[in-house]
Each structure stands twice: as C-alpha cells, then as structure tokens.
C-alpha cells in the first residue's frame, strides 16, 4: 500500500548522497590536491575558494546518515556495524580536515602541521568513503535482521580499488573547481592536474564496470539481460562523450566553468550506473528498500518536512554560492 513512500525516500536519500558527493567532493578534492601545490600563497588561495561552503557541504552527509536512520532504520542498523572501521576512519579524517579550516589561520607556527592534517584528513575521508561504497556493492552478510559477517569483511581488493577511485574522482572535482574559481598559477596547475585525474577516473570507472558484473552475477544479469541492455547501453556511451568533452574544454583556456560541469556529469553517470546495478537493494543482496523501511507514520512525518524544507535549503544554499561568486585572486581571502 505505502510502497511508493519507501521509493520516494530512496529517491530523497539518493539526492542527498549525490549532493554530498558533488559538494563535499570538490572541497575534499581541494585537500587531496594540497600536497601538489607549490607555495603557501597557493594553498591560501585554494582553501579560501571553499572556506565559506565546506560546512554546508558536509551537512549533506549528516542528512544522508540521519535520513537513513529515520527512513530505513533496519538498513542503518546493519550497515553501520558492517562498515564500522571505515566509518570511524572517515569521521576521524573529517575531524582533522574540518578543524584545519580554522586552525590553519589561527595557528601561526603550526600552519605546516595543519596543511598536512588538511591533506591527510581529506584523503583518508575520501578513501574511507570509497571503501564503504565497495563494501556495500560486495554485499553484506545478514542473519535475523542483524549484521552477521566478520569484522573485516569489507576489506577486499575491490573495496580498496573503490577507495582509490573515489580519491581520484574527488580530486578531479576539486581541480575543475579550482579552474573555475581561481586565477593565475593555481588555475593553470589545476588544469594540468585535472587532465591526469580525468584519465585516472576513466580507467577506474572502466575497471569497476568490468569487475562488478564479472564478480557479482546479480549485477551481470541486471545489465546484460534483454531488454535491459538496450535501456542501459546509453550510460557508458554518454560517459565516454562527457569525458571527451571534459578533456577538450580543459585544453581551452576560455572554458572555465564547463570542465567542472563535465566532472559533475561524470559523477552522475557513475552514480546512476551503481544505482542500476544495485536497485532496489539498500543492503545488497538481502534487504530491499521496502524491507528496510521505517514505520509508515515515521516516513510520512519526516517526508512532509523534507518536501517543504529541501527547496528552501537548496534556495539559500544557491544564494550563498551566488553571494560568494566570482574568482578568488592571488592573495585574496575572506578571512
């Protein structure tokens, strides 16, 4: 009866995760690129380009976690213990990079330390997110509605590959963000980095696309049975086009916004591939969105607030991005 409410919730969580991956993706990406910057001035410029936004960006992660608890408590209760260690690692990484935004400015002699903390924290958080993703795709062992697997079940070569892939992907988002938001040496360097990262991302996407159907029959069946094949075939084709366009625009100094948009498009495509592979499971391969759903009264109660608040949130988020629009020049900041 209320089957579609669970679907709506799956959709909302999907949006929250996508928003998170794109928004926090580019500011984690700035951290990942920190070690490749040349001077303290450049690092100031890079960090300033995201400083007013990072907290709002990270809030999408809270919405993802909180929304999962509210709408699908059974899935939340299985997944968190299943990927316990990478979740904690992600949180610890986010602590270091989060406080670095402030501490780097107020700590005079320890600036170097917070540079390292910002970079290492960002890399750790991105890697851990990839591992969590990989752990989910692999599947989680469930008995009697609780996690029943081993504590290191998540730790496989496949999960590690996903971890590295996410690091590369976020770095690509970060680099194209810098192309858009900065000038001078930082922007030039970012263009070069972005090309290498684009290549890496495409390679990783390729490997994951081959690995998952080979290793997991349910995914192979989803993609390669007829008529699905015809419906889903555009996904890899459009991906290839987006990648080529991104490369072309990265070579064209006049294009400053388009590479970032292309990188976002690539993320969306990869993401939709994963959704195609795993839908309707929240905890592959056992728990579907319907089995994990909260009581209808809970889902409806929060849904009302969400449908009202999401547009408001998107509205003022856009407003703040608009306010801080324009480029960050060398030596310029908001502090």
């Amino acid at each position, binding site marked *: 009866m209320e089957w579609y409410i669970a679907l709506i919730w799956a959709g909302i969580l999907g949006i929250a995760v996508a928003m998170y991956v794109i928004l926090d993706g580019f500011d984690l990406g700035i951290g990942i690129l920190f070690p490749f910057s040349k001077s303290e001035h450049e690092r100031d410029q890079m960090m300033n380009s995201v400083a007013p936004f990072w907290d709002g960006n990270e809030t999408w992660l809270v919405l993802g976690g909180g929304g999962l608890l509210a709408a699908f408590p059974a899935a939340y*209760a299985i997944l968190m213990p299943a990927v316990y260690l990478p979740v904690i690692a992600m949180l610890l990484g986010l602590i270091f990079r989060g406080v670095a935004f402030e501490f780097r400015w107020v700590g005079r002699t320890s600036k170097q330390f917070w540079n390292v903390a910002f970079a290492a924290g960002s890399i750790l958080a991105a890697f851990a997110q990839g591992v969590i993703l990989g752990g989910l795709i692999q599947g989680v062992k469930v008995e009697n509605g609780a996690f029943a697997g081993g504590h290191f079940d998540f730790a496989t070569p496949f999960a590690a590959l996903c971890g590295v892939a996410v690091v590369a992907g976020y770095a690509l988002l970060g680099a194209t963000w810098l192309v858009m938001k900065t000038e001078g040496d930082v922007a030039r360097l970012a263009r070069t980095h972005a090309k290498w990262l684009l290549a890496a991302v495409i390679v990783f996407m390729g490997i994951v696309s081959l690995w998952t159907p080979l290793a997991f029959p349910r995914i192979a069946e989803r993609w390669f049975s007829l008529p699905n094949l015809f419906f889903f075939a555009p996904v890899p084709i459009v991906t290839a086009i987006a990648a080529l366009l991104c490369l072309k625009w990265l070579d064209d100094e006049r294009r400053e916004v388009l590479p970032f948009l292309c990188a976002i498009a690539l993320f969306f495509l990869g993401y939709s591939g994963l959704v195609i592979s795993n839908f309707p499971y929240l905890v592959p391969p056992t728990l579907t969105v319907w089995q994990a759903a909260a009581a209808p009264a809970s889902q409806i109660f929060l849904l009302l607030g969400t449908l009202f608040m999401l547009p408001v949130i998107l509205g003022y988020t856009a407003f703040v991005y608009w306010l801080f629009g324009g480029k960050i020049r060398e030596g310029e900041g908001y502090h």
Partner: protein
Amino acid sequence: MDFDPVLLARLQFAFTISFHIIFPTFTIGLSAYIATLEVMWLWSQREHYHRLARFWTKIFAVSFAMGVVSGLVLSYEFGTNWSRFSVFAGNIIGPLMGYEVLVAFFLESTFLGIMLFGWNRFPPGLHVFSCIAVALGTLISAFWIISANSWMHTPAGYVLQNGVAVPVDWLQIIFNPSFPYRLAHMATAAYLTTSFVVLAVGARYLLAGKYLDEAKTMLRMGVGFAAIVAPLQLFIGDQHGLNTLKYQPVKIAAMEAHWDGSKPGDFEIFAWPDQKGEANRYAISVPRGSSLVLTHDPNGLFPGLTSVPPTDRPNVPIVFFAFRIMLGIGFLMIGTALLGAFLWWRGKLFEMRWYLWPAQYVWWIGFVAVIAGWTVTESGRQPWIAYGLQRTADAASPVPGSSIATTLALFVFVYGVVFSMGIYYINRLINTGPAAIAGAPPASGMASRPLSSDAEAEAPS
C-alpha cells in the same frame, strides 16, 4: 583479549558526547551574544560593539568547527554503537534528528559562511541577519535533539509492535513530559555558561589594563545577564527535578542518595553512598531537606532506592556527586552574579580587584556544570537506554569489544590533540585582544591574515 562491548560502547559514547556538548553550549550562547552585539552596534553606531562582535566571531569560528566535527561523529554513533537501539527506536528518534538536520543544521552551516567571511563584502544588514539565523539555528538544533533525548527519558506517544516502538502521536512524542523542562534548563545553561566566559574575559582585560571600553561592556553585560538568569536557572532546575520525581523517581532517589522511602529524606550535603550496605556513610545532612524541596513538606515521603531491585538502580555515587557538582556551581554562579550586580549598583564594579581577580578565572565553571548535569541525567537513567522500554545492555551493536577499544583509544588521542590545540588557540586569540583582531584592514588583500601583524608582538600565553 576480553572486553565488555557494552561497557566500551558506553564509555566511547560518553567520551565523545561529553566533548561535543562543550562546543554547542558555547556556540549557542556565543552566537546569540554576537547577534546582540551587532544589533547594538547598528543601533548605537558605537565602534567598540563592532570590534567586540568581530573579536568574538573569531573565537566562535574556532569553536563552531570543533562543534561540527564532534557532532558529526555522534550522528553516526547511533549506528556504530547502538544499532539495536536504532532498530528499536529509530522510528521515533530518527525523524526527530532528521528534522534537526533539515531545519537547524542547514540553516546554521550555510549562514555561517556569511557570518565568518562576509564582514567586508556585504551590507551590515545582511550580516546581522546571518548572525541571527545562525543563533536561531543553534537553538532549533537544541530543540530537536533534546526532544529526542527527552523521549528516551520519558517515552510517550508510541505503541510497541513486534518489539519495535512505532509512533502514534507526534505531538506527544515531541513534547514528551520531560522535554520542556530539559530544553529550558539546557538553553539557559548555554546562555549562562557563555555569560561567565564573557564576564571572565572582561575581568581579565580590566585587570591587565587593556581594551578598557570593551572590557567594561563585557563585564556589564556578563554580570547583568547572569544576575537575572542564574537565579532563574535555580528555579527551572527545581521544576525539572519535580518533573523527574514524577516520571523517574529512582533517578531522584539516586541524586539524593535516598534509600528508604518509608522515611522522609534528608538533604545530604556530603555523604558516601554505600551501594552494598544500602546506606550513606560519613553523611553531613540537612534533616528532611530533600522532603522539603521535593514535596514541600518536611514529613513528605518519596520513593527510595530500595523500592526497586539493585539491577534496576543506576550507579548511585556517580549520579549523587555529579548532582552536587552542578548544584555547587549553580550557587557559585548566583553568588558571583549577585555580588557583581551589587558592586555595579554601588558604582564599584570596575575597581574592586578582589572581585575581578577571581572573576577572571570563572570561564570554565559553566562547562563543568553542563557536563555534570548531563551525567546526572544520563547515568541516572541507567540501566535503561529508553526508560522502562529497553535496557542499555540490549542496545549495543554487534561489534567486537576489541574494535571498540581500538577506536576508543583513537578518539581519545585525536580529540586530545585537536581539542587541546583548539583551546590553546582560543586562549591565544583572547590574549591577542579585540583591537588586533578587529583592526584588520577592511579591504581584501591583507585581510586574509588578520593576526599576522599585530599578533607577533604578543607572546603566546
């Protein structure tokens, strides 16, 4: 290796949340204070209000960052530490926390950007608006999270289906019986704690003969606010206690170390509650004091600890002593504030060194009272995680003790490093003072390093 996973999960949760609450307490109060300063600045056009607002915004930024990252940890700990509780109560706790994210977190975190980085870019009106939005966001956040927490103490508006709590009436859930008292007590605690920080910093500058305009304003604001609100807190706390007596009598019995409910209760100023012997040792007490406070009758009776079997009692010494710490600080605050108000009235507030000298050290007392208060509340709820519904021992996640021990050690280490540096930086910002911080050139360019020029002159404290 043999670790008790439940005990470790509790330790980890207690450690991380006790750290977290320090920062909300301060940011709830401070954002309201900054908004007030800005409104006063716009109103009176006096520059020192502006300098003060900028100065405290710097400190706010550092605290807020620590509040955010430590809070993020908590929102995932419901799954990593208490997954069986999440299954049991997720239908109820989840949407409440969901509303917190939607209504509060996005508001505060988005407008924070304008508040911190918008000083010279945008018209003052927009900036003031953002400060108010952030202050409001922190308060709304307290509303929802305390509603969730209060439901765990006084569950209402639900039915049990297949061993899971299912919501029936959301108004009853949100406004559950202990919620209004707890929210009022906590919000007041946050403002009070902050007013003591402001008061202490004012006293510190006055004694050092620095920033006299700002110092006097801070001292007046701190003392004036606290003189009204500290006594109010006593009243709210008392009402809160009466409510608890109604719904969680065992917690009250533990707070008062009251064993035998067939006799009126003494108020123990000091005692050692002996859990085995079910009696108090070395007691110094006010005869029938507790009965008088709780029942307004020296012969009044209220339930004792022996009314429930030992397995249903909380750890009495923890609850008992934490309660006394909070009370002691509560009275110390009332005394400090009223004395200051008296001196102010006689026109001597800024000269009395015997008052200012200790006053510069009171900045931390509110934080201790807050942690002590939460220890009373939460430890007093044990052995239940949701009072009367689920035991804490049945709530933990299927995570091996060794993993929790490892991550607990990591948390202790990371929080130790990050937060001690944060507090060190805040202290240094305070020593640097409002003039140096707010005096940064208005335009862009140099503005990204506001501290570099003036701060070098100051020795780090």
